[in-house]
């Protein structure tokens, strides 16, 4: 099996040690760092994301694959920035104020990283003004907001209003998700996109970034 496929396969079964070893071997053999990233790590996460969406694998497999991806990324990151390779896009993400659940958001973050996006994770229980300040500071392409509870979901609207008040609403695409969130709700609050699951969120974010380029 070609080494990049081997990296992808090792990542899919969550063998981080092997991913690390293979990534190093690939680089030592003179492969381009961006190829190792895209055809190795990202390709592997893409397969996991698709299987996750189809209920062929579940949350544990995604967590384990993402951990393996991070072990490979640890080697690639410094080389990518040294060689001036830019990520596909930048995402600022977090859960709404009052919402302390983070598994869903973390899964979305893992899938987005796996799609080649740079993630700035503000964590849980993020107030609207913090989302706005982080948008001003990091200038992301995407602002991704998550809520698990019907009681915290309205916080998403406050973020979008905050962006408008700060005059930066048109500078960022806002995507929303989480169990109680629906397409209808996303439209009503003026979000740019709604994703039904983590893999779709990553795909949507990537497409927004590619369309802007």
């Amino acid at each position, binding site marked *: 099996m070609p080494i990049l496929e081997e990296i992808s396969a090792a990542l899919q079964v969550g063998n981080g040690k092997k991913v690390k070893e293979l990534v190093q071997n690939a680089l030592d053999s003179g492969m381009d760092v961006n190829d190792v990233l895209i055809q190795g790590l990202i390709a592997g996460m893409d397969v996991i994301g698709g299987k996750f969406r189809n*209920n062929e694998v*579940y*949350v*544990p497999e995604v*967590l384990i694959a993402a*951990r393996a991806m991070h072990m490979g990324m640890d080697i690639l990151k410094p080389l990518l920035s040294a060689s001036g390779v830019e990520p596909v896009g930048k995402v600022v993400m977090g859960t709404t104020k009052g919402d302390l659940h983070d598994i869903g958001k*973390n899964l979305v973050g893992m899938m987005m990283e796996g799609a080649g996006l740079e993630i700035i994770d503000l964590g849980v229980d993020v107030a609207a003004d913090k989302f706005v300040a982080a948008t001003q500071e990091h200038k992301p392409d995407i602002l991704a907001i998550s809520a698990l509870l019907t009681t915290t979901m309205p916080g998403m609207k406050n973020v979008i209003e905050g962006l408008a008040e700060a005059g930066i609403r048109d500078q960022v695409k806002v995507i929303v998700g989480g169990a109680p969130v629906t397409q209808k709700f996303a439209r009503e609050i003026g979000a740019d996109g709604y994703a039904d699951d983590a893999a779709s969120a990553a795909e949507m974010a990537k497409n927004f970034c590619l369309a802007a380029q």
Partner: protein
Amino acid sequence: MPEKSRAEIKTERVLKALNHEEPDRVPITDFFWSLFMKNWQKDKAPDDFIYEHYDLDLLVVTPNIDPRVMRSRFIERSEEQMVYETGWGSVIKRRTEAPMPMFLEFGIKSAEEYASFQFDDPLDPRRYYDERDDIINTGDDYMVLPSFAETVERYKNDFFIWGSVCEPFEALWRCRGTEGALMDLVLYPEETQAFIDRLTEHMLAIGKRQIEMFNLKGMVIWGDVAYDKGMFFSPVTWRKMFFPAVKKLCDEFHRLGAKVIYHGCGNASVIYDDLIEAGIDCYNPLEVKAGLDVVELKRVYKGRLAYFGNIDVRILAEGSREEIKREVLRKLNAAKGGGYIIASDHSVAANVPPENYEYMVQLVREYGGYPLKLGEYDEEI
């Protein structure tokens, strides 16, 4: 013959429904968040107990089922937030404005620590006779509740009282954290299975004690193994690692004369057949946002599984009167031939206006008497 107590009437009503027979009327109950209760008391009845006020049928009570018998140990406590260690070994941060707690730390930090994690005696009287923090159920507020025994004693003539325990995955993540627990199921199945078995024995002993000491006829198993899109982990893993535990709990509780309700959020419909085989009598809460519809489920599992829940809280929170009426009356179709306890599809939080909840109860009182007459909302089952 002495007149039946309200509890006896309610017990008969609920048991009949769980046996897939039509009682006098559709049983109703719910779980309420403390901030909703505060709003409700302010708007409706300052000194009333909501279960009493609406004459609800079931009351679920949980003793101290934590691995360790201890009261929460406060590390920080201010107006805005509190940080405390619980009997699960976890450290929880609770902010006044946030409805759910955040877990800062878990009692078990790696799969190697499972074997050395200690459980206190499940029969320790303090679990049943001391005031409780009720880590599992207090929701959006920190509350010290009267003891299990005192609560059962106070309400035993008024409601059909159910005890409760955790199913082992719920207990596992509370000790180890969701991400750690999920990865351990795949990476360290043996160590994790050994711990699941210990958790099962712990919960089994606590459940049996509740039934025997307080002559209970029902036991709720709190078990969360799914989210809105499906199972957290593979159903194959669930069948191998958790099915035997759930079956054991059901077998023992049934042997002692108690019915079993399984509470599982999200969409776990892929294991409903297994839960039926394990002996579960009734499934709660059937979240609408997870794509569950009790009327459709009734058609599939008619007579094999009873249901409890499924009234969309999003409609209770924001729906018009017409929308609430449609939701309640359509869902009442699931009560044809018994087999349905009407309730919200998880719990009633502070975003539900008290008058909307009251309207739901009024509708159930008006249309929930057997034989059901649902008019334009009637559906073939």
